[in-house]
């Protein structure tokens, strides 16, 4: 029933700690213009815009899409603003894709962004509410105990996280847009970096970045006209569960497992490890790679770390993960999820440059947010379903 939909344009800004040479509208426009250029379209070709970002307090503007809409050509068009915590970049792309899949629009531009340098994200995440005791030090403080829970139950070697960090930082050296380019990255360097939230070390964490990512979705008829390769959307899925309830498995939430099963079913995938050529997974702390390898059913329970250990997730491995350098190398929070989707699409379009996975045909994009409770995913492919 749904219209076949493809990604025909992608634009990303350079990611950096501070893009203070640009205003917020300028940042979005940089990504949106690059997406239009990629799609060989102009502003008037766009039917609707969908904007995504994480909490408004990250920039200190309430519903900033309202003042940003005309900077990305959205004036007098339908505009939606999505916010689903850390998964928002992925959810935003899914909403944009749905507008085309439903037949409501033919061609939709979506932009996700964060300009963290304009406010203070750690402050925004840790606003002390009355009656409560602040014991959670930002996202790292929240997730570190869960990582410890994973290590305990899986028996993963303590250096698994270090290996993921080295790998993603090496990948980032092949991506000119990545925020962090650590030329002298090594196992020792990560291992010797300060322990911030034990067991998470400094170089195992994501940076705080400014940046925006844009994608253009078009229906089959319009996408077929594209001179460049198209990334066809085979399936998308979103699943959420409450932050806390009795007996909730916070390490391996059912929402990611349900999401993976439903996504693969829709995409006709029987064996994800064999059929998927590469993946962009939301890994803000290195240990989440092995965890989400299990969550997305690439590895049996408690064995996700083996994929890292065997080098399967490196460029050249059988399932390269985060060839762009991932969230560990660039993290404009609200955009981070969309970057995963966009990078997956770039891979199957064969347009990923130096971090291209040779012959990639089918790729997974994944984002998560909140207390490991919001998941959004997509499968894109170089061929139509």
């Amino acid at each position, binding site marked *: 029933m749904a219209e076949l939909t493809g990604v025909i344009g992608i634009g990303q800004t350079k990611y950096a700690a501070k893009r*203070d*040479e640009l205003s917020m509208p300028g940042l979005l426009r940089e990504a949106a213009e690059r997406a239009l250029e990629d799609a060989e379209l102009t502003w008037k070709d766009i039917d609707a815009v969908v904007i995504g970002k994480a909490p408004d307090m990250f920039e*200190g503007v309430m519903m900033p899409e309202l003042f940003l809409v005309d900077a990305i050509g959205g004036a007098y068009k339908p505009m939606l603003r999505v916010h689903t915590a850390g998964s928002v970049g992925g959810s935003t792309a899914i909403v944009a894709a749905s507008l085309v899949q439903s037949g409501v629009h033919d061609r939709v531009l979506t932009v996700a962004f964060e300009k963290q340098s304009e406010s203070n994200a*750690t*402050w925004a995440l*840790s*606003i*002390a*509410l*009355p*009656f*409560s*005791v*602040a*014991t*959670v*030090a*930002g996202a*790292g*403080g929240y997730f*570190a*105990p*869960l990582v*410890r*829970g994973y290590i*305990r*139950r899986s028996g993963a070697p303590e250096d698994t996280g270090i290996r993921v960090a080295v790998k993603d930082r090496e990948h980032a050296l092949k991506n000119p847009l990545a925020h962090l380019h650590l030329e002298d990255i090594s196992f020792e360097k990560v291992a010797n970096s*300060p*322990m*911030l*939230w*034990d*067991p*998470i070390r400094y170089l195992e964490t994501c940076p705080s970045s400014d940046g925006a990512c844009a994608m253009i979705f078009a229906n089959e008829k319009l996408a077929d006209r594209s001179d460049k390769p198209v990334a066809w959307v085979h399936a998308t899925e979103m699943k959420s569960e*409450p*932050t*806390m*309830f*009795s*007996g*909730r*498995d*916070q*390490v391996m939430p059912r929402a990611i497992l349900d999401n993976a099963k439903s996504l693969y079913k829709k995409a006709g995938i029987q064996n994800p490890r064999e059929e998927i050529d590469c993946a962009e997974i939301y890994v803000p702390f290195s240990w989440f790679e092995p965890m989400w390898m299990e969550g997305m059913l690439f590895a049996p329970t408690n064995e996700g770390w083996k994929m890292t250990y065997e080098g399967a997730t490196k460029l050249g491995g059988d399932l390269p993960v985060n060839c762009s350098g991932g969230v560990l190398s660039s993290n404009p929070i609200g955009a981070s999820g969309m970057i995963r989707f966009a990078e997956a699409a770039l891979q199957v379009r064969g347009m990923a440059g130096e971090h291209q996975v040779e012959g990639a045909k089918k790729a997974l994009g994944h984002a998560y947010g909140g207390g490991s409770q919001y998941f959004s995913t997509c499968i894109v492919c170089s061929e139509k379903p």
Partner: protein
Amino acid sequence: MSDEATEDLRVLRMPVELDYTYSAGRSASRFLRAIQEGKLLGQRCPVDGKVYFPTRGACPQHGMPIDGEPVELPDTGTLVTYSIVRVPSANIPLELPYVAVQVLLDGADTVMMHVLGECDLETVHMGMRVRAKWKPKEEWSTSVANILYFVPLDEPDAAYDSYKEHI
């Protein structure tokens, strides 16, 4: 024109200050009034009987209001998981490093987040038995901060199987 006038203005400092008045809500109010008296209140989910601590308006798993009688819990429990925090955070006044913990109070079916004190960092581990260290009684207010931190108990560890479903 001077160089200064033609240079881009890069940073504009614009502090925003907004005041909010929070309502704890009916359910949390009951909990906070009790903790002012040194009591820890949980409440049972009407569907599966699990004890939620602290009391809350609804069982998030079933979307049902929790309005039954509260359950009083002891101030002892098991350290389910933890992190040693060595990075400063503006909202946390504690000296670094400190141990952030998730504690499963005895009789509760949900964990609470708090910190561990009076403990050698090297000896912290999952399954430790702990007890709340309270502020002096005269300083008690309607706040979880009446508990300063948890301290280790001289008891054998809880078995992993007894708390693993709470991680």
